[in-house]
């Protein structure tokens, strides 16, 4: 796993590359959701607020929102998920990324958890 990943309490991960934030869901989250069969992605250019739903992951049985960990503009979506939603299960940290958000200024992710903190958080779930 990438040491630079940061995690939210909603089980998203973020990877900061300058002012671009890549977002996906954690291995724990994909396992909890089960087989993902449909990903509803936002449009490039959408302006999103922190905490707002930006994508929807659907398993056979359930519908789950992915929330924006930061405010900004959607600048990339993982179009491969439209044909292959199972990538979220198979490769949650790599091929299964979901969107990239461009933030104004420097990305503030200091209040997110690093890997060790997230693993400790999961033990309390």
């Amino acid at each position, binding site marked *: 796993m990438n040491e630079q990943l940061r995690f939210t309490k909603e089980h998203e991960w973020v990877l900061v590359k300058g002012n671009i934030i890549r977002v996906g869901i954690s291995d724990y989250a994909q396992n909890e959701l*089960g*087989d993902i*069969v*449909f990903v*509803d992605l936002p449009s490039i250019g959408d302006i999103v607020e922190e905490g707002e739903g930006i994508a*929807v992951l659907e*398993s*056979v*049985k359930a*519908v789950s929102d992915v929330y924006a960990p930061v405010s900004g503009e959607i600048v990339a979506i993982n179009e491969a998920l439209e044909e292959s939603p199972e990538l979220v299960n198979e490769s949650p940290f790599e091929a299964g990324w979901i969107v990239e958000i461009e933030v104004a200024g420097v990305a503030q992710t200091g209040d997110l958890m690093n890997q060790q903190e997230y693993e400790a958080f999961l033990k309390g779930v």
Partner: protein
Amino acid sequence: MKQTPLTAKHKALGARMVEYAGFEMPVQYSGVLEEHLTVRSKVGIFDLTHMGEFELRGPGALVTVNHLITNDAARLKEGEILYSPLTSEDGGIIDDILVYRRAESFLLVVNAANAAKDLAWIQSHLLPDTEFLDRSDELTLIAVQGPQSEPLMEEVLGLSLHDLKSYHFVEPSYQGEVLLLSRTGYTGEDGFELYLPNFLAETLWDEFLAKGEKYGVKPIGLGARDSLRLEARMPLYGNDIDEYTSPLEAGLQRFVKLDKDFFIGIDALRRLKQEGFPRKLVAFTMVDKGIPRHGYSILNLQGKEIGAVTSGTHSPTLDHPIGMGYVDVAYAKADTEIQIEIRKRLAKARVIKGRFLS
């Protein structure tokens, strides 16, 4: 939360357990998609012990059963089974059940979530000379479903099942105990449901897994049970049918015998049939992207609301989203285009005739 005699087995198999109808039940083992496709192509085993089983015996049993159900139990011969709605005075569906005619009794198999309600309803409508027994706590129910279910069941029970027809049952013995084995199921595949005394549950479960290995058997959870029944276009009580829907609207006419002398709800259903009903349960496949879900609105192409989705999923067999829902009868014909409101977007769908699977 109640457990079944197989709860420990499910946990040992790594199942994810959930509460369903007051029972701790497996929702999935290896994953819903894989389990679903295993039942379609090979064979799967299900713990359905949460279902309720009531036995009615005595000289009044037939008349009592026939007062309760819309189908006609008088047509049943020993060893035969029928499916029937159970309706209230106003024709609403209290439950949908299976009725088994045994030599000396009728066995009614009811939905787990309705078992307590059904028990009270049936007990308050017993006619004279009818004895009621709740056998739910003493019986384990294991379903074996899929194209390889016949050879697997034959091997485990050591009998030939080639001549056992759909909706028929036999009472084979196993280790000196009499079991009840029916050719029934809730998946749209060939398959069996086996009722056994609790103390044999673990032995038989392990037998199905061991002898089924060469057939590719897998344990199947409630998640795949739901997607399998939906692909087979079978209604789920609480989703597609309930006390506010009648069996006529739900497309269950062939299980409603309005020429019977009497059953509870017959007057209301005769009137409904004569006057016509405004909505109908239809099945549809999505034309646009998106998965329909219970409660989503159904609109016509002009954007007017005409109904609501009652069940929907991504069909694992078709790899395509499908659903069922009630619509105004004007939109119930095959090939009618409708729209489903999915997260404030409108997605086109098409009403189908018959089953989802060819």
